[in-house]
């Protein structure tokens, strides 16, 4: 059986698709929010070195990615192991080497990967303008503004994605997520004024 076909079967059998969607949105949102906080914090603290912000952001990204992977993998593995044992009791047979057992192991790993990679993707995308600023493409002020705009856009898009899943108003859902980011931005800017 082809590799992709096998993956599709494991996803179907384990029912991991909706769970990984949730993990993806939750953690991508976490990633964007964290970097938004770091970037705005750096702006409020009047940090002029892009590298400081980039390294702080990358440190947070690595921590979020690793904690996401380990946390989701271990939680999912424990839950699925319990489910598999219950099923084995009902079936009066061992299912470890069946498609059910393999799909269960795959689902734990898949959940871990999604949980680990999604905040990293969002975070690195938000940090991208600062990379350009560090090589002299933009000024740091413009890079921070662009980084905040990207973070807020990611939040809006995640809301749109949620709206599409629930088949409700995509702009309303996008706006809800966007406002969370906006609140963080406004609170920090207010702190700077004070």
């Amino acid at each position, binding site marked *: 059986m082809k590799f992709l076909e096998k993956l599709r*079967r494991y996803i*179907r*059998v*384990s*029912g991991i698709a909706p769970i990984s969607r949730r993990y993806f949105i939750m953690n991508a949102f976490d990633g964007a929010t964290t970097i938004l906080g770091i970037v705005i914090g750096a702006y409020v603290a009047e940090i002029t070195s892009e590298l400081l912000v980039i390294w702080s952001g990358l440190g947070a990204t690595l921590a979020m990615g690793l904690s996401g992977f380990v946390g989701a993998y271990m939680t999912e593995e424990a839950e699925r192991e319990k489910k598999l044992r*219950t*099923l084995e009791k*009902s*079936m*009066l*047979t061992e*299912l470890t*080497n*069946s*498609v*059910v*057992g393999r*799909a269960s192991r795959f689902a734990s790993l898949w959940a871990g990967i999604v949980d680990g990679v999604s905040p990293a993707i969002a975070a690195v995308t938000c940090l991208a303008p600062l990379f350009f600023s560090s090589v002299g493409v933009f000024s740091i002020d413009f890079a921070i503004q662009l980084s905040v705009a990207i973070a807020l856009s990611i939040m809006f898009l995640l809301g749109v994605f949620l709206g599409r899943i629930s088949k409700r108003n995509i702009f309303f859902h996008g706006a809800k997520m966007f406002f969370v980011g906006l609140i963080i931005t406004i609170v920090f800017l207010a702190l700077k004024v004070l």
Partner: protein
Amino acid sequence: MIRRLVLDVLKPHNPGVVELSEALSHLDGVEGVNVIIYEIDQQVENAKIIIAGSSIDFEGIKKKLEEMGATVHSVDEVAAGKRIVEEVRTPQDRSARM
């Protein structure tokens, strides 16, 4: 040379009947598969599986079912040979069922 096989199978809800019947139908010597769920439990379900073909490999079928997480409870009917012999009702069957 098995031409028809009727099995009583216990299976988890996932993989579903569509997936299971497709997997069985791709095996060598199998020409048609029919899967009927006749009992559903909280964790598992019982299925009657009818397999027809030119030369069905019983061990291959069993292996595939186990790979899909199912177990064969009983082999309820086997038709083998050049011609499929259908079940016939006899007076003894009638009296036995009364």
